[in-house]
């Protein structure tokens, strides 16, 4: 299963980026292969408008099974993401990626 985190950095000790649309990075962890992949999303900085939907497009390419983020996607991005069979968990801001993963495993994150 692929788990994607919106991240402010590129390691397990990086903080969750509370923003969905303008998240700096995605860290994707595959718990079957234990592989971690980092996706740079910083190009979205150049989007004057529509950052949420541009990032949603990126999620369609990654196709994770679970998305863990902070404030959660806005209205437009959320509508687009409904097309994917993906669970979204929110309120993981102020956590490192590792803390967010542990909380997710223990069922302590809030589903959208």
């Amino acid at each position, binding site marked *: 299963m692929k788990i994607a985190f919106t991240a*402010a950095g590129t390691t397990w000790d990086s903080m969750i980026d*509370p923003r969905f649309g303008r998240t700096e990075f995605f860290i994707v962890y595959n718990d079957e292969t234990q592989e971690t992949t980092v996706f740079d999303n910083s190009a979205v900085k150049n989007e004057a408008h*529509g950052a949420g939907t541009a990032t949603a497009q990126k999620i369609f390419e990654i196709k994770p099974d679970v998305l863990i983020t902070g404030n959660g996607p806005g209205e437009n991005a959320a509508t687009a993401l409904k097309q994917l069979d993906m669970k979204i968990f929110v309120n993981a801001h102020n956590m490192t990626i590792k803390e967010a993963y542990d909380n997710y495993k223990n069922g302590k994150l809030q589903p959208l």
Partner: protein
Amino acid sequence: MSSERINEIVILSGKGGTGKTSLAAAFSVLAGTEAVIADCDVDAANMHLLLKPDFARSMEFYSGELAVINQDICIRCGKCADVCRFNAIPFMENQYTISPLDCEGCGYCEKVCPSFAIVMKERKSGKVYTSTIKTEGIMVHARLDIAAENSGKLVAKVKKDAKDHANAGNKKFIIVDGSPGIGCPVVSSLSGANYVVLVTEPTMSGLHDLIRVYEVIKRFRIKAGCIINKADVNEAQSREIKEFLMSEQIDHLADIPYDSAFSSAMIEGKTVVEIQSPLKAQLEEIWKQIKLITNKNNTI
């Protein structure tokens, strides 16, 4: 990491003219050097009139695109002008030229040009400043060029610079003066925020726009409090607002009575807490309350 301890407080109103910036500037003065100020209401930035920034450091800001025609390659076919929805390509002095004030940067002309004479270039849309203001605190703000508009991108940039300064200076708060409405800049000012202070007024459109902006805030699950400004102007409408706050569990921070002290202070280029007025004590109380709530939220 120190970034998790910074409280990002966004001040929003939905409707314009409720006193959002007057209050945001007053809180900025009360916060002094413990906060970094981010003026994200860039379309009609006016916080600088009250906070007296020194415009010390500036950086050019690019946003969106602008079509540019290479006249040496252009075959004067006029296809670009035909498809332009904004009538931004007039034919003058025997050549097609882009009117930069009208060009929206959509790129349709570039797509249809048979001689590849049109390229889209990044458009300089203004400057972002980092200033020291009259409290000795730091403020990040921006000034747009003519016909340029605020964007989520610009707001994200102003907030990021403010956050970097807050981190570097070990500040506890970022006070963000958000823009009116519920569009892209508002969404961008909300992302990553810890608390929203809503400023409304007891009018029908005050309540209508409050409800509308709160829908957006709710979507991002950010806690909010509300100040009803000019609350005594229409008590029935004020009651209706309070019922809404109660039903949505929004903190009711205060009722501020109508007071011409706001205008008198503004004429002197000051915030209302810098002149003799009973409002000063009330605003100090509200700011204390906001600090208390956000500190509590952040430790949970």
